């Protein structure tokens, strides 16, 4: 089957890339990263106007009824501009989990405000000992009355500072590393017992370690059936892995272009660097790695919804393994071929390299997904 965007997807891609190019330049991005909140509320409002926040939300909740491919198209533009606002956390992880697991009432309550740009989410999956295993959860949720009391330490929660709602994974049954017994809860960050330790992240974003100490939530704060969150969580994170791949492919494209332009202009030894064959070949290797990643991600994003569950997991693992390996190569080489100037904070290249490197680790690095791909065979 040939791989191509539909006409609508192509138009979305063009408009998203145009918006980022025109309204999210590197100077703007740097200003946002340096600001107190680390995000720009005005930009977020524009994302809502452009329909980005509802691109994969059913029409019944105010969205555009698109799928994974539409999100992937957006995230490619996000990568090209190093957009730091919490699109992945809000529309893919938060919105995706609410859409899949939420009751009618929860969806009506949460999705339309998200689409309108009035509510942002962060998903508290990880724990200090868990590395990349979604089922390695020690946070506890014990039933009390008609609700739950949650305690635990969730680590490196991207976009938690500034989120209106946290989606917290906690164990309502079983032992650490059991695949059963996980539940997902809606926790407002201001609730008694919730402590955020916020910090900047090295890729220009914001994160926090979140400690929950006897946080009391009501019965309607649970998303889905108690004890059986892992399957939906894995699907949501796999979707995040794929669109992160799309973000990475956008970053890789920028790095290849920037490196090519630099080789064409930088003069050493009486000529431009592009004349040196060893550098030509290196650039070609970067281009090949970028093209392979981009094509693989696009293919998976377009076909994903039609795959069966085991194919889905394997496809996500393949994307993440490829993104990790190609991202490391392209990022390192982009800096190397730029020489000293590539090491500076002033040049965008280093910032693209850092984001690409962190994407390489998010939700499992290349080694993790190689093993996963192999074990799912």
């Amino acid at each position, binding site marked *: 089957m040939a791989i191509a965007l539909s006409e609508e997807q192509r138009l979305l891609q063009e408009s998203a890339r145009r918006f980022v190019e025109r309204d999210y330049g590197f100077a703007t991005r740097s200003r946002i990263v340096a600001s107190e909140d680390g995000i720009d509320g005005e930009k977020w409002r524009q994302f809502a106007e452009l329909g980005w926040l509802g691109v994969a939300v059913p029409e019944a909740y105010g969205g555009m009824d698109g799928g994974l491919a539409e999100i992937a198209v957006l995230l490619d533009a996000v990568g090209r501009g190093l957009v730091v606002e919490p699109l992945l956390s809000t529309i893919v992880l938060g919105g995706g989990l609410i859409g899949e697991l939420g009751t009618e009432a929860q969806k009506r309550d949460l999705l339309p405000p998200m689409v309108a740009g009035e509510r942002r989410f962060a998903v508290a999956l990880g724990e200090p000992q868990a590395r990349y295993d979604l089922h*390695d959860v020690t946070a506890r949720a014990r039933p009390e009355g008609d609700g739950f009391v949650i305690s635990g330490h969730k680590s490196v929660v991207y976009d938690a500072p500034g989120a209106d709602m946290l989606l917290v994974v906690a164990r309502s049954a079983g032992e650490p590393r059991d695949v059963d017994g996980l539940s997902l809860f809606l926790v407002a960050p201001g609730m008694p017992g919730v402590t955020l330790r916020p910090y900047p992240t090295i890729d220009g974003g914001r994160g926090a370690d979140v400690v929950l100490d006897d946080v009391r939530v009501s019965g309607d704060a649970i998303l889905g059936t108690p004890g059986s969150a892992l399957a939906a969580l894995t699907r949501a994170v796999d979707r995040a892995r794929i669109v992160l791949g799309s973000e990475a492919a956008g970053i890789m494209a920028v790095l290849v272009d920037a490196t090519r332009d630099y080789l064409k202009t930088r003069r050493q030894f009486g000529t431009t660097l592009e004349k040196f064959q060893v550098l030509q070949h290196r650039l070609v290797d970067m281009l090949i790695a970028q093209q392979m990643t981009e094509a693989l991600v696009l293919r998976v994003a377009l076909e994903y919804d039609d795959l069966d569950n085991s194919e889905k997991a394997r496809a996500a693992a393949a994307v993440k393994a490829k993104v990790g390996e190609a991202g490391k190569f392209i990022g390192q080489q982009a800096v190397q071929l730029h020489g000293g100037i590539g090491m500076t904070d002033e040049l965008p290249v280093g910032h693209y390299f850092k984001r690409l490197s962190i994407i390489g680790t998010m939700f499992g690095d290349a080694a993790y997904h190689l093993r996963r791909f192999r074990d799912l065979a």
Partner: protein
Amino acid sequence: MDVKLNAEDAAFRDEVRQFIADNLPADIRRRVETGKRLSKDDHVRWQRVLHQKGWIAPHWPVEHGGTGWSPLRRYIFEEELGRAPTPRIIPFGLAMVGPVIMTFGDDRQKAHYLPRILSSEDWWCQGYSEPGAGSDLASLQTRAVADGDDYIVNGQKTWTTMAQHADMIFCLVRTSTAGKPQEGISFLLIDMKSAGIEVRPITTLDGGQEVNEVFFDDVRVPKANLIGGENKGWTYAKFLLGHERANIADVGRSKRELARLEAIASSELSDGRPLLDDPAFRSRLAALEIELMALESVVLRMLGDGTNSGPPGPEASLLKVKGTEIQQKITELLFEAIGPYAAPFVTEALDDGWNEAPIGPDYAAPLAPYYFNWRKASIYGGSNEIQKNIIAKMVLGF
């Protein structure tokens, strides 16, 4: 695999090891061990400890303050410095300009500068690179024009490591535009307190500020500060580059960093078990260990046939390329070992005296900046691509 030593050399190694254990200040040791940022004072204090013992410049001739050690003993010494967590010896005075001054300088220059280098009284920095002259040093533009007993220097240097601390800078400057670009270059020593010098920090992608731009605006430099002959600077620069590169293999330090990686990988969990037990991770670690053994073997063979002490050659380039590749690979695995905790970036945590609880494991904070910062190793000192050109030219005859 440890280097096999005869009884005398083994006793020497033990002596060095004991001396470091007894004399390395505990606070400095802790900062190096945990990857914290070091201050100028940390470096100077440690270098003065070595100076007091007479061990600060083992590679210098005895008459200038060297030790007279065999090349093997110098290697053992450097390996022990690397293995114990000591600060790097700042190379600009001791390893770089010092040998140039003692080889090409006049008596007055030797008498004045060499003792001050040994005692760390002067902190030196290197004025080679310029915005338009990175690996292609010969194209440098900074001008020095004779005016009576002085030169007037105008131009800009860049990537000047730790210029913010420096008392002196050694510079390549253009004194003539006639002939080939290499022929009009002179080697000049400049006091950093001279009027007309401005140092501007460059922030690197890891958030650090160890490199600088240095601007020269009508800076007056006495002609007495010229090394050797006017327009002969290229010869001295090439001599110096060989010294710089020979130090870059840094096998001892890489051994220590590998040990650190193993320690971290045994505390980090993967799939519920120590990351160190993960077969894929173990294979990568083993491959790296073998690579380091092979590099060390090259160094030991050079010590055996005496080729390690000569002018810059393909051997020095080989050490630079492989040494930095191994160092970078180690930083990459350290970055990957800490998994999600690579992302939090609290710069204050890299400074000593930050007393808040760490985010994640206590070893995590410096590792991502270290990975990003160390990408410079394959760029500076003549990029690795340039080193390979040198090897191709000298070994393969291209």
